[in-house]
Each structure stands twice: as C-alpha cells, then as structure tokens.
C-alpha cells in the first residue's frame, strides 16, 4: 500500500494548510496590536503595549480611547440584557415543545426555527419598519412620542432577541429532552408543590444548558453586526464603532488591540461554556 501512504501524507498536508488558512487572519489581526508603529503592517518595529495603555496621540491606546470604551460598555450591557431575556424565553419554549402537546405542534416548531434562516439584515429592517409604523401611528393618532420605538438600544435588544431566542430554545430543549420525568413525579409524590419541583429538580438539572445558552447568546449579541447596523441609534455598540473607525479612519493598530481583547474574551467565554456543558454533574 505504497500509494495509500502517499495519499495519506498529501491529505495531512492539506489539513495542515487548512488550519494555517484558519489562523492566519486571526494571527495577523492579533500580532500587529503589539507592533511599535502607527500602521498595522510590516516591518516589525519592536514590541510595545502602547496600543493598549498609551494616553497620548498619535498612539492613543485602547484604554484611553473614549469612543471604543463606550462602544464596549454598550455592547456589554446590551449583551447581558439580550442574553437574560432570550434564556428566559428559551426556557419557556423548551418546556412548551418538550413537555406539552398541542395542535399543529410541528408547524409551530418550524416557526420557532425560522428566525435562524432569515438573513440578519432583513430581521433588522423588518423590525425597524414595524416599530416605526407603530410609532408614527401613535404620534399621529394620540400625539404620543414613543422614542423607544425609534432606532436605539431598545430596538437593538429586540432585534437580537428575535433570533437568539431560537438558539437558546434549541440548546435548552436538547437538555430538557434528556431529563428523566420520573424524578419530577417522585418529588410530586413526596408532596412537593409544582413550583418547588421546578426550582429544586428541573431547573438545577437544566443549569448547565441555561448557563451555556446565556454565554452563547451574550457572545453572539456582542459580535452581532448585521441586525444591529439597521437598528442602531446614538449609542453604538462596539462592532458598529469599530466599523465606523475602519471606514472613516482606516486601519490603525488600536483596532488590532480591540481584536486581541475580543479574541481573548470570546475564547475564554466559549471555553467556559464548553466546560459547563461537560461538567461531571451534567451526564
């Protein structure tokens, strides 16, 4: 089997090249955050942390860059709100589809998955359109100014919530399906109330899934661009701020510094969610 060995070797080279393709742009985005130059490009002029901590132009570091920091804070609190809401709604959906029987269940299930196959840009504009129609109607009929229906943080939250709920529902439902219903029946027979059973038996069992659904929702929200772009008002989240900077100022190493922070942050969170799902209690 000489030929087979050759083939396997070529195969391995291909796999190696593929992983190089995967990491190359990430390495490039990361490495130049530490280059002592005002452009993120070769030649290498030595290691520096200026792009993170410097407080003077032209090398204003990330920690002193007011708009980027504000963007980060906006992304953070939007992400927390969206993640909390979509985990709550996802838990309800999981119980609905795993535990309950009702007419047209499979059709409703497809409806639940549909948000995942609607392009983000369209989710964004459609929510923008509906919100504006309602706001215009309230204005012309009742003289009400519903500012929260105009582009801004509340609409961003609604837009991201609209498709993240599908993801959280699927993650939580997958775990709930593995739950042994006789545990709940035992608790009920022992005299526990329904609420008590929910909080002491079912929810603790679901906790790993709730936790990792929360992290996934937070990460996707933090990094979302397409839906957010259509709904953004004056409080721009980080991705929008970064994009503006890229288009208006061009690439500067401070964007590489943001990239490093994003990569490290999301890497750690993703790892945390993997660990939570694999904890010994969960299986």
């Amino acid at each position, binding site marked *: 089997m000489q030929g087979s060995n050759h083939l396997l070797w070529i195969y391995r080279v291909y796999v190696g090249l*593929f992983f190089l393709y995967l990491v190359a742009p990430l390495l490039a985005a990361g490495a130049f955050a530490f280059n002592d130059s005002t452009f993120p490009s070769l030649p290498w002029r030595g290691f520096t942390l200026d792009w993170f901590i410097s407080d003077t132009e032209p090398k204003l570091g990330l920690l002193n860059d007011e708009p980027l920091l504000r963007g980060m804070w906006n992304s953070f609190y939007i992400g927390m709100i969206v993640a909390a809401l979509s985990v709550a709604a996802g838990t309800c959906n999981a119980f609905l589809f795993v535990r309950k029987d009702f007419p047209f269940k499979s059709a409703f299930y497809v409806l639940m998955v549909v948000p995942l196959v609607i392009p983000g840009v369209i989710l964004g504009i459609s929510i923008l359109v509906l919100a504006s129609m309602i706001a215009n109607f309230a204005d012309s009929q009742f003289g009400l100014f519903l500012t929260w229906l105009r582009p801004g943080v509340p609409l961003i939250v609604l837009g991201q919530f609209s498709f993240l709920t599908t993801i959280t529902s699927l993650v939580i439902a997958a775990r709930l399906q593995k739950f042994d219903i006789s545990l709940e029946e035992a608790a009920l027979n022992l005299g526990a109330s329904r609420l008590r059973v929910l909080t002491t038996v079912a929810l603790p069992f679901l906790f790993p899934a709730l936790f990792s659904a929360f992290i996934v929702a937070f990460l996707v929200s933090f990094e979302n661009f397409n839906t957010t772009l259509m709904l953004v008002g004056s409080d721009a989240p980080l991705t929008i701020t970064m994009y503006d900077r890229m288009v208006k100022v061009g690439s500067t190493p401070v964007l590489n510094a943001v990239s490093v922070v994003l990569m490290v942050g999301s890497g750690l969170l993703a790892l945390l969610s993997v660990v939570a799902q694999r904890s010994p209690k969960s299986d």
Partner: protein
Amino acid sequence: MSRDAGRLSLILLFAPFALWIGLLIILPQIGIGYISLREKVGINEYEFGFKNYADFAQAAVYRNTLFRTAWISILVTMLALVLGFPISYYIAKIARERSRAALFLMCLIPLWVSDLVRAYGWIVLLRETGVVSTALVSMGVINEPIEMLYNDVTVIIGLVYTVILFMIVPLVSTMQGMDDSLLEAGFNLGGSRLTVFRRIVVPYAMPGIVAGCIIVFMITAGSYLTPVLLGGKNSSWFTEQIYNQFITRYNWEAGATFGVLLLLFTSLVVWLGLRLTGQSLATTVAKDT
C-alpha cells in the same frame, strides 16, 4: 394533575412563544411586505401596487446585484462543501481520539471571533501595504507591492473563510456516528475508494451536507461585512443595496422591496434544497445548533 392546571400552564408557556414569533418575526415581515407594495405619490399620500417590483425588474444595476449575490453565494457554498468535506472526514474518521477533540475545538475557535475581526485580519494580510505583499517584495518574488483587496477572488476567499466552519460542524457531527464496519464492508465487497465514498460515505453524510449547505448559503447571501470590507466600492452586494436604500437614501419603499426579494430568493433556495434531498428544516438546521 388536573386538566385545568395543564391547560393553564400550556397557555402560560405558549404566550411568550406567540408574542415572540408574532410581534418580532411574522408582523415585521408583513410590515416590509406592506411597505414594498406602496408607492409615495405625495406627502403622506400612497398608492398600492407592484410598481416597486416593476422598478426593480427594470433597473439593471439592482437586478444584476441580486444575480451576482446569488451566484457568488452558490459558488461559496460549493467551495465550502468541497474544501470542508475532507477536513470534516479527517476530524471525524481519520484523526485519533485525542487529536480529534483538539482539531474540532480549533475549528470552533474562529467561529467565536467576530466577522469584523476576521475581515480585518484579511485586510491586514492582503492590502497593498499588507503582510503578504510586503513579504513577497522582500523575498524578491515581486518588484512592487500589489493590492490584493477589492476583487472578486478576495471576496470569495473571505466569504469561504467566514462560513466554512458552519459547514464543518454539521458534517463532523453527522459523520462521527458512521460505523467503520460500513466502510470495511464496502471495501470487502470489492468497492474501490471512489465507490465506497460515493455509495456509502456521501449518503450517510447527507443530512449534514444539506444542513451545512443551507446554513452556509443563508449566511453568505445575508452577509454584509465581508463583501463590503474586502470588495470595497465595486462589491455590489445585495444587502449593501438594502442598507443604502434604507439608511443612506431613506427610500424605505425600495429598501423593503429589496428585502422581500432577498428573503423570497433565499427561502426559495432553501426550500429547493430541502425538497431535492428529502429533508426538513427541523431535522437539519435545528439539529446542530
């Protein structure tokens, strides 16, 4: 448990679902459908009809942008499948137990990095003063720096990069379930490598292939950052047109029309894909997320 309590809890669980799907998915889609059918004839005066769609069909610029987006999205989907399949097979079947988990995790890491960072990485690598160009000049391969951004090849490379993980993940999880004895049986019965691949591996992986293709196609057709940042001014991507109509020109009627068209088009492709392969949305897309 009494039946009334069961009914009550069903209603309580159904209410958030109905609110979510009704208010944030169905009504907004009806909203853009409605806007796309009206035409502004004066201040707060509208007429209804298909004029916006007729305008679209007559404007070659917009029509071509949709065709171009469709064509590149299909090409990217094919490329992602062809390039990603060997990787998935390697991870699922050839790699040893321990390196399998590591390789799979490595595949997932870029998945968690924002599109923006990935596109930015490609910009740093490929622009005229970028890493690749500078390195080639200093090695003497080329004499002057060359601009590698703002062309179709770069856009396609960037798009494949953005979406290929969504192809690999469902493929790996499908093929991991495949029993090695199936392959051995195929070889023992005298099948060549090609026959075993065509008659055993591909049919087995089909749900993963369909799921991967649908997700990849949807993400590509709906993508915004990668074509705009890597393609520059001549990217002519359809989502960019939607953004321009809505935000830059404030022409909501045209923007909504484009939105409806994009949605119809992507739904059509997804539906065709599911029909041709005999799969359903619930068994493909929902399974792997």
